[in-house]
């Protein structure tokens, strides 16, 4: 499935950053984006993340199909909000400017349009950050750096195993689906609900049971090699934090604190262009 994003080796300074730097950036970025609803902050964040996106030499081809899919989801979400709550924006901004009557009780207001605009850009502030994180972070190096910041190495190892096995399980999944389709089990959406569950389970059964077997095999192999006997372990892919990492972390922290102070300065997380 080419819709899955995956790590690609390239030589930019973003690729050379430690995995933990990128994770902290990503988490702080998400938290800031989750807390603010200030249009100006959100627009600045979008601008910054698209600049980083370009700097990391991520190609549009790598992410375009995912991107189009998100755009479609957003359109549906926006329509759902408008149909269910046409005056959410008016409640938030405390005024009502009717731009265009739609039908009874569902006028299109400036506040609602502005609120929906904010919902959309809020969503898109995070997307480039995720793309960058996923396509520029080496999974093994990432697990090593998780351990370095104090996360127990068993958990770090779980994360590494997850990232390592996604392509394998994906391969199993495709093989099983092809095999079942070859046997005449059609996966299209024409059948009845219970029939669809039955057909899906004809894929999930073999996939899940082979996964359980794989868990046994892998954990036995690790046990034989003495995994988990000592308190610590060393990592082949470990990288030290360098000056550029500290600079990036400092800049991220300053930016996020600044953005939140700016947002909450007037006591509201929303930027209100409708107030006089």
């Amino acid at each position, binding site marked *: 499935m080419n*819709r*899955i*994003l995956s790590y690609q080796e390239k030589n930019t300074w973003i690729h050379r950053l430690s995995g933990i730097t990128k994770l902290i950036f990503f988490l702080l970025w*998400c938290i800031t984006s*989750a807390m603010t609803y200030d249009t100006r902050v959100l627009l600045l964040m979008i601008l910054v993340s698209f600049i980083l996106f370009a700097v990391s030499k991520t190609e549009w081809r790598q992410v375009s199909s*995912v*991107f189009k*899919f*998100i755009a479609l*989801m957003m359109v*549906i979400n926006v329509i*759902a*909000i408008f149909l*269910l*709550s046409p005056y*959410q924006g008016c409640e*938030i901004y405390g005024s009502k400017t009717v731009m265009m009557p739609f039908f009874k009780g569902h006028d299109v207001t400036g506040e609602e349009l502005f609120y929906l605009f904010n919902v959309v850009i*809020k*969503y898109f502030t*995070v*997307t480039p950050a*995720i793309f960058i994180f*996923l396509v520029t972070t080496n999974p093994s190096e990432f697990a090593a750096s998780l351990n370095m910041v104090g996360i127990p190495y*068993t*958990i770090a*190892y*779980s*994360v*590494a*195993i*997850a990232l390592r*096995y*996604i392509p394998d*399980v*994906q391969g199993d*999944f495709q093989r099983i689906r092809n095999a079942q389709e070859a046997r005449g089990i059609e996966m299209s*959406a024409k059948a009845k*609900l219970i029939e*669809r*569950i039955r057909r*899906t*389970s004809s*894929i*999930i*059964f073999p*996939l*899940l*049971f082979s*996964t359980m077997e*794989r*868990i046994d095999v*892998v*954990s036995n192999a*690790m*046990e034989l090699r003495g*995994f*988990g006997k000592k*308190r610590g372990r060393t990592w082949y892919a470990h990288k030290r934090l360098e000056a550029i990492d500290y600079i990036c972390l400092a800049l991220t922290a300053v930016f996020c604190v600044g953005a939140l102070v700016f947002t909450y300065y007037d006591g509201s*997380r*929303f930027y209100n262009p409708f107030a006089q």
Partner: protein
Amino acid sequence: MNRKFGIKEVVAIGIGTALFVVLTQVQIPIGIPNTALQPRMAVLAFLSAIFGPVVGAVIGLLGHALGDALFYGSVWWSWVFPEAVVGIGIGLCAKKFAVREGGFTKKNIVLFNTVQVVANAIAWILVAPVLDILVYAEPANKVFLQGAFAFLGDIIIIGVLGSILLAAYSRIAGKSSSLTKED
């Protein structure tokens, strides 16, 4: 090292998360826009019921965040945490289900379904909409409606597919050996 959290759990989290992420692409549409049955929830319930609450919680958090990021390019955080709530809720009764010992029969199927309905109710009717409102300031009636659909979808898929998977696995695992594993 904590005995309860051994190698098997580490690997179960890793490979379980991978499976959960891969199954993100399998959705059974039920005719309501933007809502579908998610077989991955049945897998989460299955793994929680076997490996316990920690494994369930981490697979829920990591799997949902990673799956969303890989397939949808964004993470809807307010729906990541309820996933962990479901994993913990079902995982807490893992010992009682006795799946690996071949004891997942009628009485435990009823218990499993009671637990999953309660866990899903807390997750999707309480936690998810409240986080949606706090984080994303979305309209209350919309998020509670979405939460209700997610709740219904999940209890159906876990109730049907999850129960079948557990019962089948319990039959196989219980029969294949009379020996017990030494921890």
